[in-house]
């Protein structure tokens, strides 16, 4: 065993330096040089301030914006640090709801959201992604159906014809990669930014 000590110690140290420092640091340098914006988190700036990342969802609550999916992320309770409070789209603490298929809490939450959405638009069935939380709590996308579903509300709030909004949504749909991978989707932040541009003169 003792004869093995030197190879173990030296090899562990050398491989630690190679894989734990040289590799990630070299990759950081290289990635920053080739893809600077993406390596830094695909941040979106508007009028000099960072308004978010194109990959990270954020909360939209006002009726004049398209809303993302419900989010189950939390933050430490300011009153008692050992507890947590709901903090949707907390991009510093990703998490899902972890509620199981027979959870009474999940059934109640979904029922409540369903009722609210049906009150807003009773003409079409509520898309499933609008009443379910994502795995990360930071899903930047909604399904095209979920975007269409919200068009009447946004149109009322913004006083824009529904047709124009539907066209806007259609122009923002990202299809499956290579026509096969993943699902069609609409990036909510990008859609809302386009919406603001539509309203601005």
């Amino acid at each position, binding site marked *: *065993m003792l004869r093995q000590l*030197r*190879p173990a*110690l*030296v*090899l*562990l140290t050398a*491989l*630690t330096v190679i*894989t734990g*420092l040289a590799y*990630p640091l070299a*990759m*950081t340098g290289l*990635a920053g040089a*080739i893809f600077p914006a*993406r*390596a*830094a*988190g*695909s*941040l979106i700036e508007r009028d000099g*301030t960072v*308004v*978010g*990342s194109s*990959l990270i969802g*954020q*909360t*939209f*609550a006002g009726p004049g914006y398209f809303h993302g999916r419900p989010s189950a992320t939390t933050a430490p309770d300011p009153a008692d640090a050992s507890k947590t409070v709901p903090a949707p789209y907390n991009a*510093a*603490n*990703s*998490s*899902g709801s*972890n*509620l*199981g*298929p*027979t*959870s*009474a809490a*999940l059934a109640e939450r*979904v029922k409540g959201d*369903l009722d609210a959405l049906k009150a807003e638009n009773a003409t079409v069935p509520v*898309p*499933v992604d609008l*009443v379910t*939380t994502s*795995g*990360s709590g*930071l899903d930047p996308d909604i*399904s095209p159906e979920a975007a269409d579903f919200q068009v009447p509300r946004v149109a009322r709030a913004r006083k824009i014809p529904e047709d124009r909004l539907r066209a806007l949504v259609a122009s923002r749909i990202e299809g499956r990669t*290579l026509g*096969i*991978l993943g*699902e069609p*989707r609409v990036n909510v932040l990008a859609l809302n*930014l386009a919406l603001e541009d539509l309203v601005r003169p």
Partner: protein
Amino acid sequence: MTLNGWIQIALYGAVVLALVKPLGSYMTRVFTGERTLLSPVLGPVERGLYRVSGIDARQEQHWLAYTGAVILFHVLGFAVLYAILRLQAVLPLNPADQAAVAPDLAFNTSASFITNTNWQSYGGETTLSYLTQMLGLTHQNFLSAATGIAVAVALIRGFARASTGTIGSFWVDVTRATLYVLLPICIPYTLFLVWQGIPQTLGAYVDATTLEGAHQTIALGPVASQVAIKMLGTNGGGFFNANAAHPFENPTALSNFVQMVSIFVIGAALTNVFGRMVGDERQGWAILGAMGVLFLAGVIVTYWAEANGSSVLNSLGLTGGNMEGKETRFGIAASALFAVITTAASCGAVNAMHDSFTALGGLVPLINMQLGEIVIGGVGAGLYGMLIFVIVAIFVAGLMVGRTPEYLGKKIEAKEVKMAMLGILCLPLMMLGFTALATVLPAGLAGPANAGPHGFTEILYAYTSAAANNGSAFGGLTANTLFYNSTLAIGMLVGRFFVKIPVLAIAGSLAAKKTVPASAGTFPTHGGLFVGLLVGVILIIGGLTFFPSLALGPVVEHLAGAAGQTFATGG
């Protein structure tokens, strides 16, 4: 279920299969010491490492010395990682000012990463500094994977050699696995991931002002370099709490597809390395075939269950399958496929929350792990886990015809069967023993977030994942407590070493045996009959051991859900 979903699944299978031969051929050259395309670049680095470490590359080891080296390497790796976790507050590269990690959590995390489990009792972005992620975790991602490959190669040598006392040099195997296999793939892979949108920066977390004027802190870091090895090395420990569901760990459908391929590719190719080194590639394909049958069955069940959705939510009028805990960009097919892959291999990364899967959709990942992750499996660990079952299957076949069983010209005798059973039996002891303990102790019962049978499944899943060195979780379980941190760590360590050490003992014993020439009475181990026998033995052993626990958890939950019953916590 949609046609497009099945096309995605078929495409996945085709891509992995297409990579088996080329990577298998390359890895065989690496581990038999032949020159490869990368030798001109990496040869000098490799020889330099041997020189400073005092390693003679031609000096092979007896299985006991090989095992000693494995253990020593792990003990030292554990110590380094534990020290980094405890000291991160005073070390550099800590822009978010993370505090020192608590002793029980540091113990759990160190055990988790040296055993290739990568169970996350911690949330990456709220607990760990950038230095810890790189120097502590990224490096163990490489080394625990390299060790798994080394042990598998040692076992293959046991089958391939005859009448020798040695099974290779651990130091050479672990160095070559790191330098020639893992690093050269990870470098272009990292760049691909950044191109897809994964951050790779040492910059601090960013404060954004949202369109509605709220503040959002966006966690960043050197993510891509870690995600590459966490997938390729079937480690699975996420940079962020939400793992591969997080848009910064898995931003697009394409990054998701490539990540799924990278989980399986080395494990699948090792079956080809096995075939080549024992001199008959068909032997490798037979093993891959048995893995494929089990994999496909799992995918069909999970995709069907998730596409059907939860009875309780469907009764509220919801259609479109189970999207709770899933990301829009992946949808149901790619999430179900990922869940089966990650638990078939010992990866444990998740792109959707398994805790929110339907009862039957969550049953498949659980079974995958309980069988010991032999369907492709962890890099190395899957192949040697499967070969343990092969030994048992051959033994059963031998009993049926009354002959001393043989596999690849090696007589399988009492010692090999005993060691194989030790490797098989330590897993249920850890999985079921600790689950039983946690369901009677208050400290254990405090863990589950869900009530009823789902709560039981959360506990069962945790110990199953730990002992099988998977690392995925039913994440609702509050596992960052003294009780769970320590019992799960024990499960991980036993699950790793009480399989590895028997495997190396088998390797040593087989290498010393003479090769018996095949005769008319030899059972052919490259055809459909053998594949069927192997799958049967795996399912019988797994079924007899785990069915009662599954009946108490997912099966009851499925039936209760179908009857419209829900369970409230606190009642």
